Each structure stands twice: as C-alpha cells, then as structure tokens.
C-alpha cells in the first residue's frame, strides 16, 4: 500500500513538472494530434506530415540557425485534453499552435486570440476565416463552404439543377450547407441537405431521398469510411448520380475501402495528391521521405496536407525573422496577414491572407478516381460569389 502511495506521489510530481527540458534559443511551437481517437485514420498521417516537416527544417539548419522545438501529443479527439495540452504548451511560451479537428479548434479559438498565438488546424469552417470571430486562426485549405460551392459550380456547368449534400451529422458536416444553399438559390439551382446517420451500414433510405428529389449530383461532406459505404450503395443501387467528395473523403483510404465503387468518383481536394507531380512534393517531400525510409504513397494526401500547413506556419516565422522583428505570436500573425500569393509548390493554389480575411485558399482542382488513383481532372476552379 505504501509503495502504491509512493508511486502515485511520484507520478503526480511528474505530471506537475510537465517533463521536458527547456533549451534556450529554440523556437517553441505546440500541437495536438489525433493518433488514437475517432479521427485517427486521417489524423495520423496529418500528424506525421507536421512532425516530419519540423524534422526536415531542423535537419536543414532550422530557422536562421535556430532549431524548432515542436511539442505535441495525442489528444484522442477529447476537447479537455486538447485544452490541457494547449495550456501546458503555452506555459512553456510557444509562439504558434497546430490543432486538428472541429472540436478543439472551436474550443481554443477564443484562447488563442487572447494569448495571441497563431493557430492552424485541419478544420476549415467558414467562421474561422473571419478575423472578427477568430482573429488568430488561419485556414490553409479551401473552406468547407468554398469546397461545396466549387462542387456546385462544376455541377451547374455540367447541366445539373439539383444537388444533394450528404453530410456527417455534426457541425463539421452541416458547415457548408447554408452557404451552399444561398449560392444555389442565387444561381437557380436547388440544394438538399441529407444527414448521414453515424455508424450506418446502409444508406438506401437516404439515397431514395436523393432519387426522389431528382438530384444529379451527390456531394459528400463526410470522412472516408461512411463515404465508402455510400459509394458502394450508389453502385449497388445502380444509380447514375455522380458523387463528389469534399476534402475529408478525398483520399487514398476512400479508394481502398470502396474498391471498384470508387471509380469515377470526383474529389474536390484543396491539396494535391502524392502522384500529382507538384513541385513541392517532388523537390522537397519525396527526397525527405525517401531518405528517411518513409513510404509516401502509403502516407497519402493528408501527410502532404500536414506538411504544407506546418510549412506555412514556419514560413510565417521566417518572415518575422527576416524583418528583424521579435519572434512573438503577434508578429507571426502580422507576417501571415501580409502573405500574398504565397506559393505552396503547387500543392494548393497560392495563398493570400489579409487582415480582413483568413481564408487564404480560394480555389481547388477537381480530381477523378481512375484505376484506383486520383487523377487531375480540371485546373484550379475559383470560388465565385
């Protein structure tokens, strides 16, 4: 019993210390990853991309000779743990933070604004792009609303009048619905929103609604595994409706899970796929992964997404250093807001941030699954108003 007590005391002391050794002259950044939670499928390669970019920078001399100390941990998509880790890292004086999902991004956006810490995550809700609402959040991907509107534009150009948005039954899922409806109304189209129940193994009922409404296109705002179930059901029912995946089912996992049903599915992906030949992938990412013995094809598009997101933050830091300013979150924020046509090496459209708009990415390319790989189908399509 006494031994147990001793152990508990030691563990508590360790928790209180927070571990880690603070070295002077490193640039401190914090982050959270979902490696074990419900979104770990996409969360793990995204996290690897972020962490590997840091390794890449540090191996190449860091930022102006200073190494980056990136502190990050798994939070299993639990908001409390995200808050714990965030405050743990801010008490170590980090100057930038990498989040992940909708839950943690929403929970922390007030805090990061108070603490003046630039925040990037893989949640692309339109509200996060408005500096009046979320002054320290920066969006690297096209906003969900933007992705949906681009998909609608494509459908309209191909003669569609009715489009169904089948979405995850959550704020993440419904995020693009209102903006999409407004756009459709202004452009003489109709959009119907159909929630996809969590954990469903059959979407026949939902697809019947699609058929009844006479929709020619189904846009999917959901993650890969339910989207794959949906693709299979569309195939099984012999529907000739064209499916368009937004960001979170535009990945290799979707193709793997859907098998033949993935053929012909269009992907509205803000990020270039591994095989796209984008200069950043070929000149920077692939040499790194080959040297480190990482299978880039297996990591997939979310790895590239994480890499580019971290790269933007680090380039913001470089900008501050180049200007000779003090390295603070506030200065990085100012530097990022000055980025015009920032090149991501063709992984995304060039990014432009201003003090009134943090949706840096306003265009994306459509891809189509052919023989199990995403092939580029169109050039960049810009979100029209």
């Amino acid at each position, binding site marked *: *019993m006494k031994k147990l*007590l001793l152990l508990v005391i030691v*563990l*508590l002391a*360790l*928790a*209180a*210390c*927070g*571990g*880690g050794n603070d070295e002077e002259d490193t640039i401190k950044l914090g982050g959270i990853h979902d*490696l*074990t939670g419900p979104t770990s499928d996409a969360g793990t390669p995204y996290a690897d991309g972020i962490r590997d970019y840091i390794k890449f920078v540090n191996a190449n001399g860091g930022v102006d000779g200073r190494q980056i100390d990136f*502190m990050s*941990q*798994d939070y*299993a998509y*639990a*908001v*409390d*743990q995200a*808050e*714990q*880790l965030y*405050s*743990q890292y*801010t*008490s170590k004086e980090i100057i930038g933070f990498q989040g992940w999902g*909708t*839950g943690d991004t*929403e*929970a922390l*956006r*007030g*805090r990061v604004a108070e603490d003046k810490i630039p925040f990037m995550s893989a949640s692309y809700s339109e*509200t996060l792009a408005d500096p009046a*609402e979320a002054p320290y959040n920066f969006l690297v991907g096209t906003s969900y609303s933007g992705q949906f509107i681009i998909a609608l534009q494509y459908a309209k150009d191909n003669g569609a009048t009715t489009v169904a948005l089948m979405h995850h*039954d*959550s*704020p993440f899922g*419904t*995020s693009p619905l209102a903006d999409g409806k407004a756009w459709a109304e202004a452009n003489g189209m109709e959009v119907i929103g159909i929630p996809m129940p969590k954990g469903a193994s059959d979407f026949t009922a939902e697809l019947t609604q699609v058929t009844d409404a006479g929709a020619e296109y189904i846009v999917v705002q959901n993650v890969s595994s339910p989207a794959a179930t949906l693709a299979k059901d569309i195939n099984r029912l012999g529907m000739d409706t064209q499916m368009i995946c937004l960001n979170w089912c535009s990945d290799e996992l979707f193709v793997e899970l859907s098998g033949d049903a993935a053929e012909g599915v269009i992907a509205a992906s803000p990020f270039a796929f591994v095989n796209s030949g984008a200069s950043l992938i070929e000149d920077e990412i692939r040499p790194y992964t080959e040297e480190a013995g990482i299978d880039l094809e297996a990591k997939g598009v979310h790895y590239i997404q994480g890499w580019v997101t971290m790269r933007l933050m680090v380039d913001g830091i470089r900008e501050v250093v180049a200007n000779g300013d003090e390295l603070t979150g506030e200065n990085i924020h100012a530097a990022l807001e000055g980025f015009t046509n920032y090149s991501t090496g063709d992984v995304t459209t060039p990014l432009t941030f201003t003090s009134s708009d943090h949706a840096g990415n306003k265009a994306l390319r459509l891809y189509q699954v052919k023989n199990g790989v995403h092939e580029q189908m169109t050039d960049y399509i810009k979100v029209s108003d």
Partner: protein
Amino acid sequence: MESGVFHSNYKKDMELRPTPIMKGRLVFVIVLALIFPFVANNYQLTLANQVGIFAIAAIGLNILTGFTGQISLGTGGFMAIGAYGSGLLVTNLGMPWWMTVPIASLVTAVIGAFFGLPSLRLKGLYLAIATLAAQQVIEWAIIRSPFTGGVEALVVPSPTILGVRMSTDANFYWIILISLAIVVMFAVNLFRTKIGRAFIAIRDQDIAAEVMGVNVFLYKVMSFALSSAIIGFAGALLAQYRGIVNYERFTIELSISILAMVIIGGLGSVSGSIYGAILISLLPAILSNLGTAMSDSIPAMLTIMPFIQKGMFGVVIILFLIFEPEGIAKIWKNIKDYFRLWPFSY
C-alpha cells in the same frame, strides 16, 4: 492514539469532523488550496480548474447514483444544458454572468427531473437506457435548435467581477474553489437531513423505504432534480470559464467519464467524487508527461504512449472494480484506519 470518539453533548455529536486529526487535515487541505494558485503555473491551474469542475459534476452524479442508487448516463447532456443555459442568458438577454449560473442550474434541475420521471417504473439497466436517451435527445436538440446556434459554437463573453476579467486560469480558480466548497458543504450536509436519508433509504431498499413512509417517487424525482442542478452548475461554470460552448464537449463520453469518476472515487462518498475527478482528469496528463519524460531514453515511448493512455483508462476501472469496488474513498479510509491504531493494531 485514540480509542474511540465519545461525544458528551449533542453539539459535539453533530460535528462533521469531531477529532483534532480530522480538523487538522481539513485545515491542511484548505491552506493547500489557498496557496496553490500563487505557486502554480498556468498549466497546473488549468488542470486544477478542470478537476474542480469535474469534481462538482461528479458530486452531482454521486447524489443520484451513489446515494439514491439511480444510474444516469445523461450527465454530459445535463452539463450541456447548464453550459448553454448560462451562455445563452448572457449573450441573448445580457444578464450578468453570476446571475445566469444559478438560473442555468435551476433549468437543468427542471429538465433533469423531467428525465427522472421514468425512474418510477424503471430500474437498473432500463433506467440506464432511459437516461442514455436523455443524453441523445439533449444532444440532438442542441444541434438542431435555432437558439443554441446549432452547428456554430456559442461564444460567451468573458465574465468580470468589478471590472476584473475572471476567465483567466488564475482568477477563475477562485470561483471554482468557492463553488466546489459550497457544493461539498451542501452535499455533505444533505445526507444529514430528512431528504438525504430518504435518498439513502431508497438506495438500500426501495420497498422497505416505501413501507417506512418515504414517498419513493417524489424523492427519486427530487434526487434527479438536485443532482441535475449541481451538474448543470458545473456546466455553467465550464461555459463561463472556457468562453466557448460547443456540443462536441458534452457527448456520451463525458457522461461515461464522470460516471467512472464516481465509481473509482467511491459510490456514496462526497470526498470520493473529488478523488475520482482528480484521478480521471489527471491520468492522461500524467501518462503523457511520463511518455515525454521517458522518450529521451526510450524514443519508442512517444509512439506507444497514446495507446497506453487509452488502454489505461479501462485498466484502471477494471482494477478498481476487482480490488476495491468501493473506490479511492475506501482505500483512503483503510489507510486512515491502519494508522489510527498503528503500531498496535490487532
């Protein structure tokens, strides 16, 4: 060494902490709690505040589950009502934040009592499912309701007292500490009243309680209301502290982890709820820091730790259920009993 506690008058008999050692321990804890914010950094304060809020919620649930014997899986939903209630009153009606917290608690009490109505007919597993339904209904209503902002997070302006912003970790610590103290005193004393004793009678044997003249239905619903009020109170504090209310925080996982706090801490023990809240909220932090600390010598720890962290939650619950079903409160009691008679225990 003491041979027993002997009371010579009624006033002494009513004391919660009759012996000098008990009083000493209480003073020690109070002093510790008062000194803590001056020596702790922001991270430790965040942890403390989280523990405090969860402790309040766990005490609330313990009134229902530990003392009245009615299981509930709707804790997350009730916390959400408290949080949204408080947040919406501030943002829509412009009420001062300190006024919204008790009102939100009252609203949660009413809704809790409503969802407690099936407890007249349902027991055990059936009641668990009925309260699970409450959790789902509340979550659904929040996402769909036009008032809550639905898909968008509800932003609550920072609470102030006399112009001082309270939502910082250090300032809010005091609000949580005072709230926790009030809730603890309320709960401890509740079980010395007619109402509290009726709760315990129902837990121990509801038929016997009814025969003794306890109105089982009334007291069950009352227990739901009281418990929900305290849980809603915790939710309201969370909304004010964090400034942003999002439904994703109040899912079934929260209900389960608070239930775990109550079970690990000790069913039917107010202090146990606090121990449980400490253990369950600090366990991930302890393990992740342990992983980081060990990763210097064993780099693989960093990749394995997240999985250990996940598994540990289950392991801890199973170990407690096997070795000490009465929880940390019982372990602490055993330690105290051991030393009370030490070294001449028999």
